[in-house]
C-alpha cells in the first residue's frame, strides 16, 4: 500500500497512471460498439496497419509528436479499412482473409519503412520502435495532455451519439429505414476506433492494443444485457486494468506496464466468465442443476400420484 501512495504522490507516475486510466476508459467504451458490431479484430488490424502511417509521418516531419503520429496512423488505418472492404466486395475472398492480407501487407510495408528510417540519418529516431512494443513509462506530460483531449472527445462523442451508435450496432437496416446516415455513422465509429487504437499503441504496443478494445467489452457483456450499463462497466474495467498495470509495474522492477494491464484485464474477463450472473459458467451450472432438481421432483410427485391412483383402484 505504501508503494501505491508513493505512486500517487510521484508526479511522473501520476502522468503514467492518468494516461493508462484514460486509455483503458476510452478504449473500453469504444470497444463495446466494436464488439457488438462483430468487429473485434478490426482493432488488431488497425493497430498493425498504423505502422506505415507513423513511419511516414516521422519521415516527413522528423519529429516524434503523438499528434502527428495520430494523423499519419489515422490515414493509414482508414486506408486499411477501405482495403478490407474493397477486397471483400470485389472478390470472393472472405473478410477474415481480407483482414489478414491487409494487416500483414501494411505491417510489412511499415517494417520496410522502419528499416529505411534506421539506416538513414534521421536525428532522434531512437525510441520509434518503442511505439511497437509500447512503453507506458515513456509517456510524458504533453503526451498525456493529448490523450486527455482525445479521450474526452471520444467519450463525449459516444455519449452524444449513444442512441445512433446503439441503433447501428444492433440493427443497421432499421437505422437506414429511419433515415439515419448509416454510412457516415459507421465511418465515424471506425474513425473513433482508429483514434483509440493509435493512442493505445504508445502505452501497450501494436499487438496488445487489440486487448484494450476487446477484453473489457467481452467481460462487461457477461454482467448485463443493457448497452448503457455495458458501456460504463467496460470503461470501468479498462480503467481498473490500467490502474493495476501501472501499480504492479511501478512496484516491481522490469515488469512492463502494458502487458500487465492486459493480463489484469484478462483476469477480469475470467472472473466475469465464471461468476457473471445468468451468462457466467457458474450461474449456468446452478440454473441447470436447479432445473434438473425441479424435473426430478415433478417426476417423483407424478409417480406418487400414479401409485396412489393404482392403489385406489
Amino acid at each position, binding site marked *: 500500500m505504501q508503494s501505491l501512495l508513493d505512486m500517487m504522490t510521484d508526479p511522473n507516475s501520476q502522468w503514467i497512471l492518468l494516461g493508462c486510466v484514460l486509455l483503458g476508459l476510452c478504449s473500453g467504451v469504444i470497444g463495446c460498439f466494436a*464488439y457488438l458490431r*462483430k*468487429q*473485434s*479484430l478490426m*482493432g*488488431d488490424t488497425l493497430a*498493425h496497419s498504423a505502422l506505415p502511417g507513423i513511419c511516414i509521418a516521422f519521415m516527413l516531419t522528423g519529429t516524434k509528436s503523438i499528434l502527428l503520429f495520430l494523423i499519419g496512423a489515422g490515414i493509414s488505418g482508414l486506408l486499411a479499412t477501405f482495403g478490407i472492404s474493397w*477486397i471483400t466486395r*470485389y*472478390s*470472393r*475472398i*472472405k473478410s*477474415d*482473409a481480407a*483482414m*489478414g*492480407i491487409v*494487416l*500483414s*501487407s501494411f*505491417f*510489412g*510495408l*511499415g*517494417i*520496410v519503412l*522502419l*528499416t*529505411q528510417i534506421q*539506416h538513414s540519418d534521421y536525428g532522434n529516431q531512437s525510441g520509434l*520502435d518503442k511505439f*511497437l*512494443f509500447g512503453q507506458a513509462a515513456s509517456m510524458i506530460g504533453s503526451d498525456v495532455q493529448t490523450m486527455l483531449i482525445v479521450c474526452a472527445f471520444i467519450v463525449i462523442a459516444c455519449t452524444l451519439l449513444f442512441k445512433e451508435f446503439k441503433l447501428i450496432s444492433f440493427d443497421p437496416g432499421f437505422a437506414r429505414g429511419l433515415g439515419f446516415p448509416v454510412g457516415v455513422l459507421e465511418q465515424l465509429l471506425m474513425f473513433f476506433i482508429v483514434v483509440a487504437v493509435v493512442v493505445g499503441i504508445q502505452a501497450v504496443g501494436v*499487438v*496488445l492494443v*487489440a*486487448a484494450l*478494445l*476487446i*477484453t473489457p*467489452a*467481452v467481460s462487461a*457483456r457477461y454482467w448485463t444485457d443493457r448497452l448503457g450499463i455495458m458501456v460504463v462497466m467496460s470503461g470501468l474495467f479498462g480503467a481498473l486494468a490500467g490502474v493495476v498495470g501501472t501499480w504492479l509495474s511501478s512496484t516491481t522492477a*522490469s*515488469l*512492463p506496464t*502494458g*502487458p*500487465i494491464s*492486459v*493480463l489484469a484485464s*484478462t483476469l477480469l*474477463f475470467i472472473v466475469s*466468465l465464471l461468476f457473471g450472473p445468468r*451468462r457466467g*459458467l457458474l450461474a449456468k451450472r446452478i440454473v441447470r442443476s436447479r432445473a434438473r432438481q425441479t424435473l426430478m421432483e415433478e417426476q417423483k410427485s407424478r409417480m406418487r400420484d400414479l401409485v396412489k391412483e393404482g392403489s385406489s383402484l
Partner: protein
Amino acid sequence: MTDFWVLLTGALVASCCAILGCFLVLRRMSMIGDAISHSVLPGIVIAFMMSGSRDSFIMLLGASVLGLITVFLIQLFQQSGVQADASIGVVFTALFAIGVVLVSLNLKNVDIDLDCVLYGEIAHVHWNTWEMSGMDMGPKAVWMLGITLLIIIGVISLFYKQFKLCAFDPALAAAIGIPVALFHYLLMGLVSMATVSSFESVGAILVVGMLIIPASAAYLLTDRLGAMIFISVAIGIASTGIGYGVSIVLDASIAGCMVCAAAVLFILAFLLSPSHGLVARKLRRRTLSGNTAV
C-alpha cells in the same frame, strides 16, 4: 553463399506457410493463424527457460503445445457464448502478454530478443550453423524448416482427401465418419510448427502474411484445391525471390520486402485473374450488357 542460404530459407518458409495457408483460407480461419503466430511466444520463452538453450527442437515442441492450447481456448470461449473473433482476440493478446512479461522478467540472462521474435532476421540465418562431427552442415534454420516442410507434406498428402473434405464440407465429413476435430487440431498443430520454425527468419507477424497472402492470391486464380496449393507455393517462392532482390536494392528489412512482394502479387491476382479478377469481371459484365443491348 549468403544469398543462397537466405533464398533457400525464404523459399522453405514460403512453401511451409503457403501449403497450410490454403486450408486456413478455405476454412475461414485466417485470423486463427494470426492468433497462433502471436501466442506461440510464451511457448518459445518457457521452452527456453526450461531447457536453457536455444535448441530449436525443444522450442518447436513448446510452441506447438501452446498453439494447440490457443486453439482449444478459442473454441472453449466460443462455446461459452463469446463471439468467434472476440474470443480469438482475447486469447492471443493474453498469451502474448504472458510471453512479453516472461521475456522482460528474464531479460538479463536471456538472449531472446523481442525484436528478433517479432520481425525476425533472415540475414542472420547463415551464421547459426549446425556442426556435426566437425563438419559444417549448413544453417540450423534450413534443417529445421526442411524437416517441418517434410512433415507438412507427409501429413497433408497422407490425409489429403480428409483435409479436403473438412475444408469444404465439415458437416458431410463428420457424417461420413471422419474425425473432424482430430483433423482440425492436426492442422492447427502443423500451423504452429510452421510458425515456430519460421519465426526466427521472418518473425511472428510476417508469418501471417506468408500464410494468408499467397493462399488468397491462389484462391483467386483457380477453383481446384490441388492447383491452388501449387500456385500458392509458387507465389510464395516468387515473392521470396522478388522481396530479397528489392531488399538488397533498398537496403531494407528482407522479411518486410518479402511480404510486400507477396502483397503486390496478390494485388495483381486481384486485378488480373482470368476467372475472378476485377478486370475480367468488368469485361464480362460489359460484354453481357452489350449482348442484351443488341
